């Protein structure tokens, strides 16, 4: 120590860094991040706004022992690997993908360290092929803040078929192994991926999850005849190089409570799915205000979608991890009241429908003209501003019906069920009604 200046050590330990890095990210998110990286690769490979990902694939495998994700989406080069992908923190001069949905550096590292204590990354681009293998325990014990290449082939041409990335993690952390071995976790993860990446799936990207091909879920609204969803299109920052295009669609679809609500889509990624919370304006009824009620099953036909698209992805109203909504975003604040207007319009229509249904039952005139005139249309295909429209003078398909409700002793109803040979109380009611009516000579 003599002669040398004494100093206070502020060097973080690697274990601390790893711990900090993985702490606050949910497992599902970490996997979605990795899928996003693949999709960003696909976007680099097939640039432009008209996405066609035919022939590109992502394969995910996970179980209690191992996680693996591979794609044929172009790979990433050693330059990116050496200087960006594995740096802790994002260098100021980092490259970005147009219309990107991922957050390249952070997402991958976090996922790798979060899942397990050993990982491999293999990537092949059109001119390079490389691999790295990291045993995290060994790496934490060393002093160097760097990883070594396990394989490196430069300046050689590779065919498009060979290009892609493969990431494998094993020696899974116990809590991760436990999760990955749950069938329910795997199924709900497959559903989440399917819901969030639906637009890319519908653009032809193939995603395989534990050997199962994920099909895209349809997001459709009814349109046709005198029926039309409302469409509003707005452009922000029109004069700049990266304008933000916003398209709001609100309308009706089949009655499915689980699918009803707002969908918020940023650069193709669904960040909110079937949302019925305050975030998208539901349950905002308050005093002196004509708000929107809490979601109720009579609104199970409601579908609303907002598409935000911008080549510069930080302009979109998502949080820094691009996984959720940033309600403070200026663009969101400007779009939100427009969404409320359209929600109100649709809700008014659905309330009307509900009243009509009470009165007519299955013979509701609006429902039957809806079924006759309109068909389900993929929301991606609906463009061009238009107001909400419906058939205001629908014809009833049959006579008006009304419901009769009454209670009788269970044992007596059972006696009649047996006597009439029917197996529900409802059927007892209907059959006895018809019998009396016929007895009176009034049925036709």
């Amino acid at each position, binding site marked *: 120590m003599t002669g040398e200046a004494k100093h206070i050590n502020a060097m973080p330990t690697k274990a601390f860094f790893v711990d900090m890095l993985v702490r606050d990210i949910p497992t599902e998110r970490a996997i979605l991040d990795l899928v996003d990286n693949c999709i960003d690769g696909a976007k680099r490979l097939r640039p432009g706004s008209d996405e066609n990902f035919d022939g590109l694939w992502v394969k995910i495998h996970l179980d209690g022992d191992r996680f693996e994700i591979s794609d044929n989406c172009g790979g990433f080069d050693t330059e990116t690997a050496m200087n960006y992908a594995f740096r802790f923190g994002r260098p100021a001069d980092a490259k970005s993908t147009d219309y990107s949905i991922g957050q390249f550096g952070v997402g991958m590292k976090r996922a790798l360290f979060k899942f397990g204590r050993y990982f491999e990354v293999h990537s092949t681009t059109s001119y390079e092929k490389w691999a790295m293998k990291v045993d995290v325990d060994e790496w934490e014990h060393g002093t160097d803040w760097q990883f070594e290449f396990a394989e490196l082939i430069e300046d050689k041409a590779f065919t498009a078929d060979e290009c892609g990335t493969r990431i494998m993690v094993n020696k899974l952390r*116990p*809590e991760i192994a*436990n999760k990955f*071995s*749950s*069938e*329910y*976790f795997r*199924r*709900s993860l*497959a*559903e989440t991926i399917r819901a969030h990446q639906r637009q890319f799936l519908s653009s032809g990207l193939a995603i395989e999850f534990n050997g*199962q091909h994920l099909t895209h879920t349809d997001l459709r609204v009814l349109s046709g005849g005198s029926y039309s969803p409302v469409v509003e299109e707005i452009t922000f920052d029109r004069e700049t190089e990266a304008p933000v295009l916003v398209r709001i669609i609100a309308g009706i679809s089949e009655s*499915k409570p*689980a699918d009803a609500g707002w969908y918020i889509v940023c650069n193709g990624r669904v960040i909110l799915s079937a949302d019925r919370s305050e975030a998208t304006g539901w349950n905002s009824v308050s005093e002196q205000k004509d708000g929107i009620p809490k979601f109720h099953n009579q609104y199970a036909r409601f579908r609303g979608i907002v598409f935000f698209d911008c080549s510069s992805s930080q302009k979109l109203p998502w949080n820094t991890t691009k996984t959720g909504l940033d309600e403070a975003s200026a663009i969101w604040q400007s779009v939100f009241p427009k969404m409320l207007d359209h929600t109100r319009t649709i809700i008014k229509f659905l309330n009307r429908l509900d009243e009509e249904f009470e009165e007519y039952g299955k013979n509701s005139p609006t429902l039957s003209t809806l079924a006759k005139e309109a068909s389900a249309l993929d929301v991606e295909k609906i463009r061009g501003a238009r107001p909400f429209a419906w058939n205001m003078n629908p014809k009833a398909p049959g006579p008006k019906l009304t419901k009769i409700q009454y209670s009788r002793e*269970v*044992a007596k*109803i*059972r006696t009649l069920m047996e006597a009439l040979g029917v197996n529900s*109380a*409802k059927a007892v009611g209907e059959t006895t009604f018809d019998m009396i009516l016929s007895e009176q000579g009034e049925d036709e």
Partner: protein
Amino acid sequence: MTASYELIDYSLRPAKFAERKMLCDFFSRLRVFGSLESYRYVGFGSIWFSDCILFHRALGISDIISIECEIDHQKRFEFNNPLRGIKLIMGEASDVLPTLDWDIRSIIWLDYDDPLNLGILEDVRTVASRARSGTAFVVSVQSEKIFDKRDQENPVHVQSKDEFADYFGANRTPEALAQSDLRGWTLSKTSRQMLRSEINEGLNLANAARPAGQRIEFRQTVAFEYKDGAKMTTVGGVFVDQGQNAHFDGAGLRDLEFFRDDEEALRIHMPLVTPHEMRHLDRQLPAPVSSGLNADPIPLKEANRYAKFYRYLPNFASFER
């Protein structure tokens, strides 16, 4: 509507009777985990208490709990309680199960009259996430048709994957679920798969906090399907922690002819034979595997069914000469 005990005399359902006897054989082998006298039995005894009585007489279990949800008829249940050792607890299984003492090694048979529904799955999960090693768990459900009764007035007969996912949730829905999995005997298989998945899920959650070596697995032991009236199916097994796997393997459960640890169930067929024919066949039983029965003039199919189940058949055939 009407409680099922008012419609069916449980003791007279022959396939159910055989199932009960086979389960009794299964439970008798649990003594590798601890004396049967120290076990507790938890079941739905109804007003017949057939299960409670059998397991008391055959296994010597005297700590017995019968859960009964027909609160309005409590007096009648109490009146019919045949043993001092049976504690009748009135209430829904979902309310009673979490309050039981799960440190006691138990035999639990949730014998529902209903087809699979969300409430049953919740009960199954409650048991799976609490049971200790050595506890046996059996679940029976009706498997004729599944109904989504969330809207009481308009129950939906669940016939498609969409309806299934809508009712049970996406994470409970197998990716490859086909319409054929929701009808006929295949629905029995689907029901058992669902029950097993739910057990595994409950275990998975509980195991997250258990140290390696003490994680509990469900070792399936039995699977039955039968049709006394409506189709019914049963799946059962033992919760075993990793340290006690050798106990399970050494219990001789695999020697039971009705042992089933995979997707296929033993289908219980009641043989149609007269008392005289039974005595004729009895003299040839147990038959060595290789040699066929001398059945004539009894149809061979019936004779073989008899040979398969004769040890478990009910003895309440009428005694005509």
